[in-house]
């Protein structure tokens, strides 16, 4: 709220509120809250259904019953026993973790060059970066697959991780937007002091950009955690390299006929780490998402 409206609100607060308007405001508030609550229920219900199904026996899962009877908590244990859940989690953490590191290492200098350095071709380069955002991955997928076959990387997570050490358009875009909001005076002052560009980047910009870096890191981690198509294509052949997303979909086919109760239990286990991270890092997420939309 800007200064004028704050003063206005304070002024309004001091005036006595007639009862009709108070009642109207209460009704409106109730109405708004009811809609919000209804929407909340709608958004939460699928989670509850999934949770409920994960605790049923397989027979019950196929039947119209909504409430588990009895509660089969051992389903979660069965998931760990039925397939190497730990290895898949490790693969997913490796992929997501290394991807995040790679993206930060490569995109920060690039975003810096695009936002705080003057050089010939900067505008063209930025347009090229943006254009890769619009390029559908389907165009490059076949040749990339062939390249990775020749390199012998198919069946491992290398095709997923290594390209991210060479930049990622979305991250570059986000970081550039944020870097541009840092006042030039800070850089200029450091330049006058004789600092090299690298030193300015590391000592001035990066500390100030921590919220953006955190947002970007979280986005990349989340994206890699949930990624399905690329791990399926590049690592799908080798079950030792599966990530959780691929394993979950393949798990559908482990026995002829889906075991819905185990499927839902595995899905919940897959979602859990991300949801936990989200609860602890909510602010970063929301700020980061805002960064993409509003400032863009």
């Amino acid at each position, binding site marked *: 709220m800007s200064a004028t409206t704050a003063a206005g609100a304070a002024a309004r607060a001091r005036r006595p509120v007639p009862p009709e308007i108070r009642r109207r405001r209460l009704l409106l508030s109730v109405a708004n809250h009811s809609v919000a609550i209804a929407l909340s229920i709608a*958004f939460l219900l699928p989670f509850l259904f999934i949770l409920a199904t994960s605790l049923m026996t397989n027979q019950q899962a196929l039947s119209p019953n909504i409430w588990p009877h009895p509660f089969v908590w051992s389903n979660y244990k069965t998931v760990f026993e039925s397939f190497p859940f730990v290895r898949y989690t490790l693969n997913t953490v490796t992929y997501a973790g290394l991807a995040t590191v790679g993206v930060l290492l490569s995109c920060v200098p690039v975003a810096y060059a695009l936002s705080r350095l003057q050089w010939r071709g900067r505008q063209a380069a930025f347009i090229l970066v943006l254009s890769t955002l619009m390029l*559908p991955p*389907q*165009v490059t997928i076949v040749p990339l697959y062939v390249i990775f076959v020749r390199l012998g990387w198919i069946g491992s997570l290398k095709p997923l991780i290594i390209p991210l050490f060479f930049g990622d358009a979305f991250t570059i875009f986000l970081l550039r937007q944020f870097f541009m909001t840092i006042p030039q005076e800070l850089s200029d002052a450091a330049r006058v002091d004789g600092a090299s*560009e690298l030193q300015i980047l590391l000592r001035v910009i990066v500390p100030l950009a921590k919220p953006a870096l955190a947002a970007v890191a979280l986005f990349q981690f989340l994206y890699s*955690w949930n990624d399905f198509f690329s791990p399926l294509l590049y690592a799908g052949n080798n079950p030792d390299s599966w990530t959780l997303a691929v394993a979950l979909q393949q798990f559908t086919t482990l026995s002829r006929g889906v075991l819905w109760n185990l499927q839902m239990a595995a899905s919940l286990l897959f979602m859990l780490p*991300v949801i936990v991270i989200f609860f602890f890092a909510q602010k970063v997420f929301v700020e980061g998402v805002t960064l993409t939309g*509003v400032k863009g």
Partner: protein
Amino acid sequence: MATTAERPAAALEQASTAARRRRRRRAARHRQLVALAFMSPWIIGFCAFYVYPMISSLYFSFTKYDILSQPKWVGLANYRFMFTSDPLFWVAIRNTLWIIAIMVPLQVLFGIVTATVLTRIKRGLPFYRTVFFLPTMVPLVAAALGFIYILNPAGPVNRVLGVLHLPEPLWFVDPRWTKPGLTLIGLWGIGQVMIIFLASLLDVPRQLYEAAELEGARPWQQFRYVTLPMISPVIFFSVLIGMIQGFQYFTQAFVVSKAGDRTNEVGYPQDSLLFYTSRLYQQGFEGFHMGYAAAMSWVMFVVIMACTVVLIRSSRRWVHYQGGFR
């Protein structure tokens, strides 16, 4: 004309200007090199993972190629087949257009609606925001599987509908209801879009609303003439991203089609879920017509570019930027 006395002075001037110019040029070149050094990871990545594969795939699009053997040049045969002979190409186009014309607008609308609801909440906003945003954390595969179960013809949603004496569609088994079913998944994951709209809505200056109210504008008029123009950049952004993602829609459709029975065709039932990328996947990675898949991908690229340009051009007419320039 300089005199003899001024000539050495002028020469000195010229020499120092030349030196300054040389220094400036060296400094500029130094700056250029530093910038390029900073850009180097991206430059390498761009050439290796974008330029080279793009040229490669353009080449493949003119060949018959199944990876096992050498590509065979066939000229425009792939493109000709695509537009005249591919039995399911136009089906895929129609399905993809459904997403862009129906699902994306619905998602944007729902994002605005939910964000608007949240702007009126004074207490407990963080709670609601968390709840609305939570579904976007769910991996697409898990979300699809969850909804397959929930929208099972004998599942919970239909039971509730039955209790309310409403018709119970067969959802992912009935081709008329499969895309609406996918839309439900899309709406469930509206949180990210909603957050952006929420920030934008809260950014609208209150004076505008007060001014409108003073002029006697009703709430919906305020919405139409104050809110909408103010959030139009975000609408533009959401529609643009939604459109680009809509062309690439794949994972949910793939998981839903195959979950009922692994041997189902991609696009089951009755090709209602055969989207453009699904068709590409079918031909490229199930039928192993790699050249044809490459051709399809280039057509898709051109179409996306064209639609993006059209959207951006049209945006000049209805998008209002507070700052004044893009």
